[in-house]
């Protein structure tokens, strides 16, 4: 059993791990994919103080090493279900009721913790079924900086109208012969040899929908104190309702959520 289990190893989860571990708590981070989070797709970061121009992968590898050095444990397993162990939930005494133990089932094991920090971030919104069918055999990419260079001198299409789409178009214009641009629901042009999707992001919170309040868009409702509607469950980083989703605000959430969890365990 762990004092605190953190779900997600992006910057919010890793920062929470560092804080909780330094406070003497036993900490496990569960990560379904790879540590690092969304920022590993960014090649140059200019707004992270103290390390001007650092790349996302370099920054996250440093933070990973720091977390491991400080005693944080990471298991690469996807969380399938999280439940409250009933024997710890008494209805008689409200004060006792919040002292629940959480049981977490993953694709490879079972874990339990006294407090849980959800730091699952967001994921790219997937192409609609209709557009996936229109795409046919053509490659679909959610990362122009990863896959753009495969289409040197070839026509491609970018789907989306937000900042990410603009960024992807600009990047691809230096590579592709032609960068077509369509909005969310438009038909996919036939001449495009690859489809780059940038139609926004959605919070990775489906697993928690019966445990904590989510807003209409699926974000976990929590204020700056990172406390969710359920005592003992905390939300940190991009998956939380907030106005500014940046690397540094995610890191700040990690610290706040860890302190809140430590306080809860006291």
């Amino acid at each position, binding site marked *: 059993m762990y004092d605190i289990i953190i779900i997600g190893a992006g910057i919010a989860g890793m920062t929470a791990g560092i804080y909780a571990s330094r406070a003497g708590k036993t900490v496990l981070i569960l*990560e379904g*994919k*790879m*540590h*690092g989070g969304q920022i*590993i*797709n*960014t*090649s140059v970061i200019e707004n992270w103080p103290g390390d001007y121009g650092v*790349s*996302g*992968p*370099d920054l*996250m*590898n440093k933070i990973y090493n720091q977390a491991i050095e400080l005693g944080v444990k990471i298991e*690469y397993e996807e969380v399938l279900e999280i439940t409250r162990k009933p024997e710890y939930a008494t209805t008689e005494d409200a004060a006792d009721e919040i002292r629940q133990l959480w049981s977490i089932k993953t694709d490879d094991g079972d874990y339990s913790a006294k407090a849980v920090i959800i730091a699952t971030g967001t994921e790219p919104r997937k192409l609609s079924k209709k557009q996936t069918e229109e795409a046919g055999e053509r*490659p679909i*990419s959610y*990362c122009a*900086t*990863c*896959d753009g*260079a*495969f289409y040197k001198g070839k026509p491609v299409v970018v789907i989306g109208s937000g900042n990410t789409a603009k960024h992807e178009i600009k990047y691809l214009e230096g590579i592709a012969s032609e960068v077509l641009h369509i909005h969310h629901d438009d038909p996919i042009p036939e001449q495009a040899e*690859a489809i780059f999707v940038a139609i926004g992001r959605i919070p990775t919170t489906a697993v928690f929908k019966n445990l904590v309040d989510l807003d209409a868009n699926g974000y976990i409702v929590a204020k700056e104190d990172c406390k969710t509607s359920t005592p003992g469950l905390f939300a940190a980083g991009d998956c939380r309702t907030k106005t500014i989703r940046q690397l540094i605000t995610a890191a700040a959430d990690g610290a706040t959520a860890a302190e809140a969890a430590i306080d809860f365990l006291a």
Partner: protein
Amino acid sequence: MIELLDFYADWCGPCKMMTPVVSEFKKAHPEIKVRQINIDEEEELAEKFKVMNIPCVVVLKEGEEVAREVGVLPLRKLEKLCTI
């Protein structure tokens, strides 16, 4: 014989996350032949294996493709992919 092909490029950020993983993998599994393929230098190999998204790892058994995964993988998942 099992072979692991790791397709990457210098301009690909997420690929950099794979570098320490692949080094660790090589140390832990000397029995598996690991080839790191820079897709800009070995374009024909990337084409042969129809690699269109990177990072991408392809597992070969006796020269036949038996598994493939796109995206960054932690060590344990890479090991799992190779236990065919």
